[in-house]
């Protein structure tokens, strides 16, 4: 017999419900008044939300965030046992118990070849992913006003120097230029003339885990233009304008394209992947296009690993070169899901305009890589020698009641 149904059930959306903590207490108050007084203390403690610390002989405590509740069950033992009570508390609490905060720092260089643009958080404690709070300091003189923070469990970070290609067309000359402002010291230049509107950009990754990645390309051009995939798909074009180095966000791709999602029966193994893009400018005549470096930031979704991406922007008006306002500090409060900017001197806090809405999280017992992208809008070039100072912290989230 055939049917349109599939065997077994499919979980489509899951969320953890509140847990219930049951505590049984015995009270020996001596007198009835003393017992009543102690019961009142208990009731008053739990009538509002509170943090309940629990440590049953383990080295570290955990904390439950309880919801308002009342005393469930009070047993007394009659006039012959004055002041004796047995109380049962049924405390609804948030699903995850929290542990003591774990903090750390990282100094992240802006140069991807130097181990930069990312830092790792290892040996994450807890049982479920925990929100990672961060305080970032981009340093004075940083006027980039848009930032990307991506967290993932993917252990690898891929980057490569693109190769420019003419594919035999005329009015375009390729060269390699040595320049200290370029990543790796050199960049590829295409000198355009006539109506040729741009080079092809080839990326070859020799050892990459199949999956979905966000492609960032560092480029600049003398005239406005767009860089997009050679076979265009919707929404994957970004324009670059201005003559200064900028990281272009080309969106998420699967490398290699169409590769099947990894599964328990077919674990992912490293492979090669290529990508070809095309630069398009609308102007004609003489012009140059410089393409420096490309970076793949993991954006997992299909392959079962965790990831999230957050874009925050302070708006160009808040980075004012004349007044010397540089939005050099960004606070990302992942617990409350808020982000806000401040200047180095601590003034003019601006609530960040957020998109992507994936605040960073760290997952226990797997590698955790946090990638920072400084994607500026402004007239100031991306500086590969800049560093970002990061202070991070998280409270581990436990399903069990043991702190580790």
């Amino acid at each position, binding site marked *: 017999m055939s049917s*349109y149904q599939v065997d077994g059930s499919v979980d*489509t959306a899951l969320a953890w419900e509140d847990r219930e903590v049951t505590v049984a207490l015995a009270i020996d108050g001596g007198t009835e008044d003393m017992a009543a007084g102690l019961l009142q203390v208990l009731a008053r403690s739990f009538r509002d939300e509170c943090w309940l610390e629990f440590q049953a002989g383990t080295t570290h405590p955990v904390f439950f965030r309880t919801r308002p509740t009342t005393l469930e069950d009070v047993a007394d033992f009659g006039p012959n046992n004055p002041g004796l009570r047995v109380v049962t508390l049924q405390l609804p609490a948030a699903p995850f118990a929290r542990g003591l905060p774990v903090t750390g720092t990282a100094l992240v260089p802006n140069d991807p070849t130097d181990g930069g643009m990312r830092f790792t958080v290892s040996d994450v404690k807890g049982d479920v992913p925990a929100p990672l709070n961060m305080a970032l300091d981009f340093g004075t003189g940083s006027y980039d006003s848009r930032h990307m923070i991506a967290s993932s469990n993917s252990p690898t970070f891929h980057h490569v120097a693109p190769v420019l290609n003419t594919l035999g067309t005329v009015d375009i000359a390729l060269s390699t230029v040595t320049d200290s402002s370029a990543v790796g010291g050199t960049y590829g230049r295409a000198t355009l003339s006539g109506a040729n509107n741009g080079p092809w950009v080839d990326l070859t990754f020799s050892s990459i885990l199949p999956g979905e990645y966000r492609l960032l390309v560092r480029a600049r051009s003398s005239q406005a233009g767009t860089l997009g995939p050679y076979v265009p798909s919707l929404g994957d074009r970004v324009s670059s304008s201005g003559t200064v180095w900028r990281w272009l966000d080309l969106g998420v791709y*699967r490398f290699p394209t169409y590769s099947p999602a990894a599964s328990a029966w077919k674990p992912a193994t490293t492979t090669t992947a290529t990508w070809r893009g095309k630069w398009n400018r609308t102007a004609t005549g003489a012009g140059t296009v410089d393409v420096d470096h490309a970076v793949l930031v993991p954006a997992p*979704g*299909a392959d079962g690993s965790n990831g999230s991406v957050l874009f925050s922007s302070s708006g160009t008006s808040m980075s004012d070169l004349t007044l010397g306002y540089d939005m050099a500090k960004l606070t990302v409060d992942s617990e409350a899901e808020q982000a806000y900017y401040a200047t180095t001197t601590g003034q003019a806090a601006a609530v960040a305009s957020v998109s992507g809405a994936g605040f960073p999280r760290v997952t226990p017992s797997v590698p955790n890589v946090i990638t920072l992208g400084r994607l500026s809008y402004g007239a100031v070039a991306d500086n590969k020698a800049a560093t970002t100072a990061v202070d991070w912290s998280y409270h581990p989230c436990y399903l069990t009641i043991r702190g580790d």
Partner: protein
Amino acid sequence: MRLGFVLDTPDGSEVVTGRVSNETLKNSSPGGFASVEFDLVRALDETRLPAKARVRVYDTATGEQVGGGRLVEQGLNDDGTWKIAALGEGIAALQDIDEPYMVIDTELKPYTQPVSVGVKMKTIGRKQKPTKSNTRASIPAPRYKVATTFVMGEAKNGSAPNGSDVEGLLFQVPEGTTVSSGASISASFRGPYQCGMRMAAYGYRYITGATSSGWSMRADAETVGYTSELSRSDSWVATETDMFWRVHTTNFSAIRDAIRLSIRREGATVLVGGNAWAHVRGLVIRSQLYGPTGAIRSGEALATTSARVGEVFTDLIVRRCPTLKLGTIATGTQAFKQLAWYDGITAKDVLDEMCESDGTVTYHAWEADTDGRTTIHLEPLPTKVRYELSTKHGFSAPSPASDAYDTVVVSVRDDDGYVQYKRVSRNTDGNPRSQPINLDAFPPEGLDAVANKFLDAMEKTPNAGTITVAERVLDLWTGRWVHPAAIRSGHLCRVRGVQPTPDTLNPEAKQDGVTIFRIATNTYSDGVATLELDQPVLNADRAIAALLG
């Protein structure tokens, strides 16, 4: 993976992901993002969210936006949460303005008044015979002509008195009228003025009763309530002229919003015979339209006898939708000869009507750009499949309520006034079922095309249905596995497990248990996306709405 929700208000934006429950996201074609509904935990005593608040919904793993819109409802539920509903920015912005609008008017509905064009003269006084015996010379009584009546003339729709059936605007002075120099009969066309727009170009052909330079056929371009200017003045000719255009800025001032056609006696006073008439046909009035840069297009560019969807789309977005900006603009194939709604219409209704008639393009608005404005695209219907789906989580296709027909009779009155008639039959078993179609205007694609379009739709049960998607599916265009909420309406999908009825997307030769559908809407809630395929399914709610509406 979680969906992230961001609320934008004029005071700033707020991430509300942790406080959202019971969310439903919808996108549709045409339209793009259609709606976002959710319950929001918020204190009851907080002030309502401002009217211009917006919502954006993201797939937090990839940062793509999967829903968004402009706040339209905020109510309070009895469990202390707020019920928030947002309407997609494209759909909302296209309905903001409901006012008269015109692009091209070829229907002759002038504003006319009868005017005195001349007089009928009569000779009075008696002839006198001299008497026989009278030696004194008699003074003959004078005889002179006097005007007896005023003759009224008015322009009216009709055919010319020369025996042809061609419809047009007839200006005629009755035979026997004495017309003084300077007398005229006029008709006014005020389409652009009625819509608050300006005239871009006009053109017409005319023919008159006799060739004469004593009469002129005039066109005056006017700004109603202000000034006017002479735009054209031609002598009368007895054979039909060619059509020629007058355009704004080059031939008349760019502030004109009406045209007055008239015949005028240029020569000396004359007693007219039976050929004092002029017949105007093929009148086309074009209104000024905005181009993609936001500037009014030149008169020369607009001097055409038809308009297509692309130029109307561009004008509507620039003129009526400040929160939208133009993305891709496809031209469209259908040539529309009459686009005027003097009683008021929204941009959405204009586009829906034109896209449906055209049949090759549709419009969508998805994410907002960094400047806060949402890009709206007019795109050709895709021809390449984008998503690979299967029926394993559920597929249903209830029977549509319409009957099937295999024969059709199309009739219409053509430009010359004759009734054209065409019968097309695809019946093969000797038991045909037929329907008539009576059209108001001759279709540009021809009667055969209209008949075949009807039969394509009505001959068999169409491919349509509802499919449930509960896991990531392959997106062939980007090579990625996309989340069900990220499936975009308007694209083609290939569904394995459904045998198709042969149609344009599923030709007779490819009957292989796989059907290609177009996704009409995607409604996502609780981890599951429900896609309506091909056309919205005729369920009970829609049937009732159709009966009532």
